[in-house]
C-alpha cells in the first residue's frame, strides 16, 4: 500500500464532520502554524516540500507564494480554485464531498502564511451540493473558533467564503476566475501584471488549486522535508489521480508520484485493468488538454523503459512521444473506442468553452470541431487532415490564455499518433460508420533499446 496523505481517512464514517475530523488529528496544522510558526516559516516549509500546483500547470506552490507582493495597507487575498472542469478530472469534487475540512484547514494555514484576512473558495456552480457541504463545514469551523476573529487567541482574523461560478470551463484559468469572482464574464486577463501583484480587486492575490491547498496540511504537520522524501525527483509527494473511461475500477486514487503507469492501470490496488476483458488502446494521462498517447507509449518510454506517473516521466520525449501529468485526469480508452470520434468530442468541448476573446481560439476551435465532425461522419477528404493540422498549429501559442493550447494539443497528438485512423475514416466512409478502426498496432510493445557502449 502506498502512503496516503490526503485520503488516509476517507473511509472513516463521519469524516465530513468537524468532530470526527478532529479525532483523526484534523486542525493540528492550524494550531502548529498559528501558534509556533511565522508566515515566512510556513512559506519556507512549502518551498522545501517541492509541492507543485495540482491544478495542471505544476508550478511550484512555495515559489508562487513567495512572489506575492506585500505593500503596506493593501489587502491580500487567497483564492482557492475549485472550478474543476477539465474533462477527466474529478478529484477536487471528491475531496470536497468527503473531507471538506481538509480544504478548510489548508485554507486557514495558507491564508495565514500569505497574510490574507478574507479568502474565497471559487467552486464551479454545478457543484451546488459541494457548495452546501463546504458552507456547512465552514459554519462548523467558525462556531468552534477555527475561523473568524482572533483565531486560537493569536490575534489572527480570517473570514472564508464560498463563491459559486456560473458554468464556464475558462474560469479555471486563474485570471478568468478572478474576473468571474468580481462579477464579470470570465475573460482571462493579459499577464503581466500577474495576480501576485494585481489580482482580485487589483490587490495581490494567490490562486491555488483545491488539492494544492489541502496538501499544505500534511506539509505543515510533518515538515516540508518529510513531504519531499515521498515521490521521485522533482515530483514530490502524493497526487490524486482521477481515473475514468474503460477501466475495471474508475475512481479517485492517491498515488505516490513515481508509480509505474502499468501498475496504476493493471494492479488491483488501483484501476484493476481494462473493463470487460478488453485491451488498452490509448490514454489521456492528465485531463483532456494533454496529448493522447497510444497504449504502448503510455506504458513505456520511447526507449523501452517503464513510464512512471510523475511530472517528468509523463512528459519524457516531449510531445513527440510523451504527454503531461496535468491535473491527473487519467482517461483510458479500450480497443473499441474511436480516436477520431473522441477528438471531435473534445474539440466541441473547447469550441463551446472558448471565451471568444482571441480570434485564433474563437475561430480555430470552431474550425477544428467542424473538420473533425466531417471526418468522423464519413465526409472527410485527405486535405482535411492537413488543414486540421494547420489550424491547430496556428492556435497554439497565439492566445492570451492556455485554452488555445489546450484545444490544439489533443488534436495535434491524435493526428501525430493515430493518423492512420483518420485516413481510414476518409478512405472507408461507409465502413467507418459501421465499425471502429480497432486497436491496430497501438498496443504493440516497445522493445527496450539495446545498450550501446559509452564512447
Amino acid at each position, binding site marked *: 500500500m502506498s502512503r496516503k496523505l490526503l485520503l488516509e481517512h476517507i473511509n472513516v464514517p463521519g469524516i465530513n464532520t468537524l468532530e470526527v475530523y478532529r479525532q483523526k488529528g484534523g486542525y493540528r496544522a492550524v494550531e502548529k502554524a498559528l501558534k509556533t510558526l511565522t508566515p515566512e516559516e510556513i512559506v519556507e516549509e512549502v518551498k522545501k516540500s517541492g509541492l507543485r500546483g495540482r491544478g495542471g500547470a505544476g508550478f511550484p506552490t512555495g515559489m508562487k507564494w513567495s512572489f506575492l507582493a506585500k505593500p503596506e495597507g493593501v*489587502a491580500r487575498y487567497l483564492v482557492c480554485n475549485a472550478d*474543476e*472542469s*477539465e*474533462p*477527466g*478530472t*474529478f478529484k*477536487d*469534487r471528491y475531496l470536497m464531498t468527503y473531507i471538506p475540512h481538509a480544504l478548510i484547514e489548508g485554507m486557514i494555514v495558507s491564508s495565514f502564511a500569505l497574510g490574507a484576512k*478574507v479568502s474565497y473558495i471559487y467552486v*464551479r*456552480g*454545478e*457543484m*451546488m*451540493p459541494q457548495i452546501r457541504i463546504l458552507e456547512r463545514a465552514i459554519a462548523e469551523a467558525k462556531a468552534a473558533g477555527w475561523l473568524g476573529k482572533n483565531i486560537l487567541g493569536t490575534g489572527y482574523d480570517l*473570514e472564508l*467564503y464560498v*463563491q*459559486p*461560478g*456560473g*458554468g*464556464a*470551463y475558462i474560469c479555471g484559468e486563474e485570471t478568468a476566475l478572478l474576473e*468571474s*469572482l*468580481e*462579477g*464579470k*464574464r*470570465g475573460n482571462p486577463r493579459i499577464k503581466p501584471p500577474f495576480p501576485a501583484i494585481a489580482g482580485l*480587486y487589483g490587490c495581490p492575490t494567490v490562486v491555488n488549486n483545491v488539492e494544492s491547498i489541502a496538501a499544505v496540511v500534511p506539509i505543515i504537520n510533518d515538515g516540508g522535508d518529510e513531504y519531499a522524501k515521498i515521490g521521485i525527483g522533482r515530483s514530490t509527494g502524493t497526487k490524486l489521480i*482521477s*481515473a*475514468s*473511461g*474503460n477501466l475495471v475500477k*474508475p*475512481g*479517485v486514487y492517491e498515488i505516490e508520484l513515481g508509480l509505474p503507469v502499468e501498475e496504476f492501470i493493471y494492479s488491483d490496488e488501483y484501476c484493476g485493468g481494462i473493463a470487460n476483458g478488453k485491451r488498452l488502446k490509448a490514454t*489521456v494521462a492528465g485531463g*483532456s488538454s494533454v496529448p493522447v498517447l497510444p497504449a504502448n507509449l503510455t506504458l513505456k518510454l520511447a526507449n523501452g523503459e517503464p513510464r512512471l506517473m510523475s511530472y517528468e516521466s509523463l512528459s519524457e520525449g516531449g510531445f513527440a512521444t510523451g504527454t503531461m501529468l496535468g491535473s491527473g*485526469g487519467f*482517461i483510458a*480508452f479500450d480497443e473499441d*473506442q474511436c480516436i477520431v*470520434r*473522441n477528438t471531435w*468530442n*473534445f474539440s466541441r*468541448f473547447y469550441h*463551446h*468553452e472558448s*471565451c471568444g476573446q482571441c480570434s485564433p481560439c474563437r475561430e480555430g476551435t470552431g474550425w477544428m470541431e467542424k473538420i473533425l465532425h466531417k471526418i468522423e461522419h464519413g465526409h472527410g477528404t485527405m486535405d482535411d487532415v492537413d488543414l486540421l493540422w494547420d489550424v491547430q498549429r496556428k492556435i497554439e501559442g497565439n492566445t492570451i490564455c492556455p485554452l488555445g493550447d489546450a484545444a490544439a494539443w489533443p488534436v495535434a497528438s491524435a493526428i501525430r499518433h493515430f493518423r492512420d485512423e483518420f485516413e481510414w475514416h476518409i478512405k472507408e466512409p461507409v465502413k467507418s460508420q459501421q465499425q471502429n478502426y480497432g486497436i491496430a498496432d497501438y498496443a504493440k510493445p516497445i522493445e527496450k533499446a539495446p545498450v550501446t557502449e559509452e564512447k
Partner: protein
Amino acid sequence: MLKVEEQTPVVFSSELLAKFDEIKSRYPEGKQKSALLPLLHLVQAEYLWVSTSAMDQVAEYLNIQSIEVYEVATFYTMYFLKPQGKYALEVCRTGPCCLVGAEKILSHLEEKLGVKEGEVTPDGLFSFRGVECLAACGFGPVLQISPEYTFYENLTTESVDKLIEDLTNKS
C-alpha cells in the same frame, strides 16, 4: 441580441432580498458586483429561470447597469434565459462520459420524454439538455437536475426510466 422571453415583472420577496444582503456582505465595500453570480443563482432557484425583469432588478439592487447583468447571464451556461421544465435534466456529453454511454442516455431521454433537447414537456415537468463535463468522469454517465443540482451517477436507461417515474409521481 439578447433573446430573453419577457414576462410580467417579478417582485423579489423579502426572504430573497435578505439572502441577497447576506451575500453582498461577503465582499469589501464598493465591490458588491462580486455578488452578481450568486444572486443570479438565487433568482434562478426561485423562478427556475432568469428573466429580463429579474436581471434589471438585480442590477438595481447591486447599483450596476443592466447590461452588466445581461453580459454575465449570457456568458455563463448555467443561467436559463427561458423557462425550463420543473426538473431541468442536464446530461454530461463530454469525452469520458461518452466512453461509457452518455450519448445513449441523451437519445433515450429524447425518446422517453418525447421532446427535443431544450424543449419542455407539455405537462411542464421536464426539459433536458446535454452539457459539458460535470467533473464526475469516473462515475459516468451522469446527470444533474437543477435547481437543486442533485446528482445521479452510473446511469443506465433503466435507472433513467426509474428517475423520470419517481419525479413524475412526486409532482
